[in-house]
């Protein structure tokens, strides 16, 4: 592939504003997405367990596979678009950093692992539930961190 590089747009006022706006939107999306998953799947281990496997004491049924798959399907779509946007801006602004490559791999890797672990937890065993929780929180935290780094760079330019 041969990427087309136009002149440095980093100091373009309009582009800077647009990047700040989109990153702030993604930042708010990330926070709300975590809250939404808290409501849908659970805020603590006990409620996540009840959602996935049901609870005989409270007569709760396990979540339907259709609903869970729909959640995973939508999550994958939203995750890739938010991460793709963040990563593109980050690469553009921090082109000289050496740690970029690993950060991107961890970010996209945990982003894809989270929904996969959620399905695995539903079908196989409980340890995947913990794996889902860790990867879900990790990719959200990394994405928030990336957003803050980008905003800092854009504001201090």
């Amino acid at each position, binding site marked *: 592939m041969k990427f087309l590089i136009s002149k440095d747009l980093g100091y373009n006022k309009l582009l800077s504003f647009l990047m700040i706006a989109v990153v702030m939107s993604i930042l708010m999306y990330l926070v709300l997405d975590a809250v939404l998953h808290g409501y849908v799947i659970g805020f603590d281990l006990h409620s996540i367990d009840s959602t996935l496997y049901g609870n005989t004491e409270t007569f709760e049924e396990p979540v339907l596979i259709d609903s869970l798959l729909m959640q995973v399907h939508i999550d994958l779509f939203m995750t*890739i678009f938010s991460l793709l946007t963040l990563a593109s801006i980050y690469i553009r602004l921090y082109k000289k950093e050496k740690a970029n490559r690993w950060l991107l791999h961890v970010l996209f890797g945990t982003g894809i692992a989270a929904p996969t672990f959620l399905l695995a937890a539903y079908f196989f065993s409980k340890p995947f539930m913990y794996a889902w929780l860790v990867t879900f929180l990790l990719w959200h935290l990394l994405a928030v961190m990336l957003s803050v780094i980008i905003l800092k760079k854009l504001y201090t330019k």
Partner: protein
Amino acid sequence: MKFTELYRIPIAYLLVYIVLILGTGIWIFLLSQGLDTEENIGATLQKVGFAPIEKSVYNFVEVAAPHMFAIGTLIFVVAHFMLFSTRFSQKFSLKISVSLFIVALINICAYLLIIFGFVVSGWIKLLSLALFVLLFLLLLGMVAFSL
């Protein structure tokens, strides 16, 4: 390493994410056609072919609306990477992209034909779905090969 090389990482992950999105999408479709109560996928596919589940216009719009936007955007984002490809001609990429858009539209709207009684069987839905997935995988493969 030039910094533009880093763009390969998000693009490569995009391809994997899309394969998973396609996989879960097909799974959800088959579940809606009774996969969970059937013995196997083959039986469900036959059921879709000969007697697809009845759906209302509301059911159709509920599914079609987000998919029109999501599939259109996904094809656009993936196909635009072919602009930078040095391995495939833009003419070929254009043909694949246009075909993919058309097949996606047919696939989304196929259920309308069943709802309004123009066709009884769901083979057109299955055929368009299979063609859509194959074309999308071809496009993903082209992008992967160009990376």
